[in-house]
């Protein structure tokens, strides 16, 4: 009987659980999503169709799902973590051979009512499995090479499949998300130092291999990197995304051009203005103040999650909270870096704001698990 189960008595039960949900976090999530609704409405030229309304419906469904998941005791989620990982992995393999190919990269399964991307699910399943693994692993073994190799393998297996799709953005999120859980679990600094050193080596190798027979990335990925390094070299071709996004951001100024007044997005100069590049619309129409507000909301979410994690005496609960928060952080950090020209364009949506079904539902489900950990956290001996 675990510590968690032994202190069950102090954990809220029944309908009263609802009161213990982290409502501040729910509020923050809703605020972020509202930014998304506004921008989708504006991008459609002042219309709820075709983006804002479906997005709102999905958010509502996602919120309900989140609360339902939150009501399920956290140990249930811990116990099915392995199963979830295996199931998602099988789906990944499945889409590798039978999935639909859309947008040149994403592979998804059509469930009829929605399109499911197993790679989205995998981000959460991986975090859950790693958290469960470290919950199970005796502390003294955490930094032993064999016991480090196992989670590394667990991370790399799906990553390789996702990279083959090819979806560079999700691959980065998987590796970084997994690594953060490992770090939080207490794996020695040395490993991370070595990996970072190897990463630098790999980057050198990636560039060195370019144009040779054993080239490590696809040509389009190399072009994206080139474009990132010098967007002005090809402003109408590969550099178009970044150049136009920067123009939109820059033309926003302090206060922006006003709601629905952004010329860049309204006149379709902005690429993928309702998905990956939606931040540019926000920045153009609401300026620095609007963009910074969104960033502050995101920061608030991260802070609330980490506080919840630190107050959680359950190892699985806190690790899964840190992992989900990290995944969320990586989403918006990568997206914003890419839009603001700090990173190559890798196709990661702005969480809860970008238009898109499965990403939002999966994220909200993940927050459900996070809430479950919050609701069912051991209250200690009071």
């Amino acid at each position, binding site marked *: *009987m*675990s*510590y968690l189960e032994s202190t069950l008595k102090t954990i809220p039960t029944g309908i009263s659980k609802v009161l213990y949900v982290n409502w501040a976090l729910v509020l923050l999530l809703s605020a972020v999503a509202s930014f998304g609704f506004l921008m989708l409405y504006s991008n459609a030229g002042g219309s709820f169709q075709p983006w804002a309304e479906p997005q709102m419906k999905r958010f509502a469904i996602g919120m309900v799902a989140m609360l339902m998941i939150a009501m399920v005791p956290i140990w249930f989620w811990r116990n099915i973590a392995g199963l979830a990982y295996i199931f998602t992995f099988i789906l990944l393999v499945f889409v590798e051979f039978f999935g639909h190919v859309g947008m040149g990269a994403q592979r998804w399964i059509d469930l009829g009512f929605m399109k499911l991307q197993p790679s989205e699910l995998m981000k959460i399943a991986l975090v859950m499995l790693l958290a469960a693994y470290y*919950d*199970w692993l*005796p*502390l003294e073994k955490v930094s032993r090479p064999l016991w480090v190799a196992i989670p590394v393998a667990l991370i790399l297996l799906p990553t390789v499949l996702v990279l083959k799709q090819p979806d560079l953005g999700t691959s980065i999120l998987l590796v970084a998300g997994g690594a*953060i859980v490992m*770090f*939080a*679990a*207490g794996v020695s600094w040395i490993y991370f130092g070595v990996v970072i050193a190897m990463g630098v080596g790999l980057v050198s190798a990636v560039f060195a291999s370019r144009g040779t027979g054993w080239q490590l990335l696809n040509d389009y990925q190399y072009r994206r990197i080139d474009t990132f390094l010098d967007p002005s070299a090809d402003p109408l071709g590969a550099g178009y995304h970044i150049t*136009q996004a*920067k*123009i*939109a*951001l*820059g*033309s*926003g*100024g*302090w206060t922006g051009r006003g709601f629905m007044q952004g*010329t*860049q997005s309204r*006149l*379709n*100069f902005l690429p993928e203005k309702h998905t990956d590049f939606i931040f540019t619309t926000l*920045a153009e129409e609401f*300026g*620095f103040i609007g*963009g*910074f507000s969104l*960033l502050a909301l*995101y*920061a608030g979410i*991260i*802070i609330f999650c*980490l506080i919840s*994690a*630190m107050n959680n*005496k359950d*190892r699985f609960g*806190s*690790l899964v909270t*840190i992992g989900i928060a*990290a995944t969320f*952080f990586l989403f918006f*950090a990568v997206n*914003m*870096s890419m839009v*603001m*020209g*700090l990173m190559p364009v890798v196709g990661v949506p702005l969480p809860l704001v970008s238009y898109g079904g499965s990403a939002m539902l999966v994220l909200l489900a993940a927050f459900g698990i996070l809430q479950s950990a919050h609701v069912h956290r051991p209250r200690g001996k009071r």
Partner: protein
Amino acid sequence: MKRSPTENAASARKVTRRALFLGASQLAFMGVLGLRMRFLQVDQADQFRLLAEENRIKIQLLPPARGLIYDRNGTALAENEQTFKVVIRKQDAQELDKVLAELERLIGLTPAEQARVRDDLKNRKIGPSTPITIADRLTWEQFSAVAANGPALPGITPEVGLSRHYPLKGDFAHLVGYVGPVSDYALSQMEEVDPIYHIPDFQLGKSGVEHRMEDVLKGKAGILRVEQNVHGRIIREIDRQEGQPGANIQLTLDHKVQNFVQARLGGESAAAVVLDVETGDIIAAGSTPSFDPNLFVRGISVADYNALLENDHRPLPGKAVQGAYPPGSTFKLVTALAALEAGVVTPDETVRCLGHVEVGSRRFHCWKRAGHGNMNLAASLRHSCDVYYYEMAQRTGIENIAKMGRRLGLGESYDLPLSGISSGLMPDKQWKLANRGAEWVVGDSLNAAIGQGFVLTTPLQLAVMTARVATNREVVPRLVRSIDGMEQPVRGGGELGINENMLRSVRQGMFEVLNSNRGTAYASRIADETQHMAGKTGTSQVRNTVVNNKNVPWEERDHALFVSYAPYDAPRYAVSVVVEHGGGGSSVAAPIARDVMLFALHGAVPPLDAYPSSQRNTIRERFRTLPLVGKEDESTERSRA
């Protein structure tokens, strides 16, 4: 898993430490994002906002209406007519196949034209909102058919444009000139290209007044600022600044006189100039054969152009100013004045003509082999005796003759807005040394004295010479009367300073040419005493031998020339006529000059009683068959107004 409380506490501590580190790192990274946002949005805002405007706003030029060209009485010589065309823009060309098939049915669009449209649509240089002309110069019926079938023709826009039109067709082809499409070559010749020329279907003056006064006529382009989206589709008009139409130009020409001149010269390769002796106004400057300038506006077909090029009567150049001919005996006016002014002869002094003179080892013939006998000045002009002028040439010298020629306006090109104005040639010793590398010999003077040899004059110069002889004033030809209502100055007009008595004796000789029954052009006299004409015939040799003009090929026959002014007592107009290879000046050129002069004086077809009674029947017959614009012209004028 089972864990001891101490182990749990250790785990929690470690997780908390690591979570704090992670949180700090994440917040730090968010701080970087915030700073980056600030940098892009605040520090560089101005620069990027400008770029956004550039993205958004596109400037289009609106073509101004070209200035109109009128004759001295306000009749339009060059006007802008509406043209109907259908255009398509890349952004609208989704159902191209269907549209082209439908247009083939409606307006008979040929497969070649369809192929051109397809090529244009593939041309990457053409922007998505640039109109591509599918068919131009549609009739009103075709245009309405297209407009009415709008729904079946998605993407097609019927448009109304302006195009140059020359209502009087060939009459002013050499003077007004014509416009044509802007070619890459024309653009490459400009020092500074006005962006106006990049407007599709813009027309550029190619010759004549249209070319030389392009800057005045073209006007200023209007500016249309539109907002466009990423595909170049125009969302809305931001503002519109209308252009400034080109200035209207009024010429000194009289379209009726010009029309008469063209008709009277008929099928000859000929030119005639009518000059107002007071102001220098060019009333008419005909050149035949002519061509329809409207052909060039549309872009002339190769077949039509080759036909113009291959015609041995050369329709393309305006012979009135571009043609340089040996003036023949008309030049004797210059020689006579030069001799009188040099004081080497008096009007009454006689020279004996034996039909030839011997100078050095060469024999120079008079056109009358038998000789004229004793000739004074007036008689020498009346009979056009060559020997008299051979003598004068030797007495006067080429330098004095050339000086008098230049004073009378020969050997210089006038500043007129016409194409290819020739300066003719008034030779002297220095010219021959520089251009022929040989000394001037006395034989050259003899030839020059009778308007042969090196001397070349244009019909316009001959008219100027005559006007100056008639008025003793420095008459300078003028073609532009006013620009946008602003009267253009009459230049010249100062005293020529030739002794009036000397001029009077030359004029007397010119009077006798027509009005003495022994004058060379007696048959072409004007019977109306108030309009008596004075003149001088000329027959200039094309080959260096005297020929019988009837028996030689056309291109070897002599040029026929005539210069004249009238009325003798109070000169109003000077008329010069040159008929290339026409034969004799008296038989061919003088009758034309008389008809033209009378038409100019009357402003209409002259009454028959101005002619000698014996000639009236033939004259009536001649006028009846002339293809004049006449009454038909007045009715078209009314409909145009």
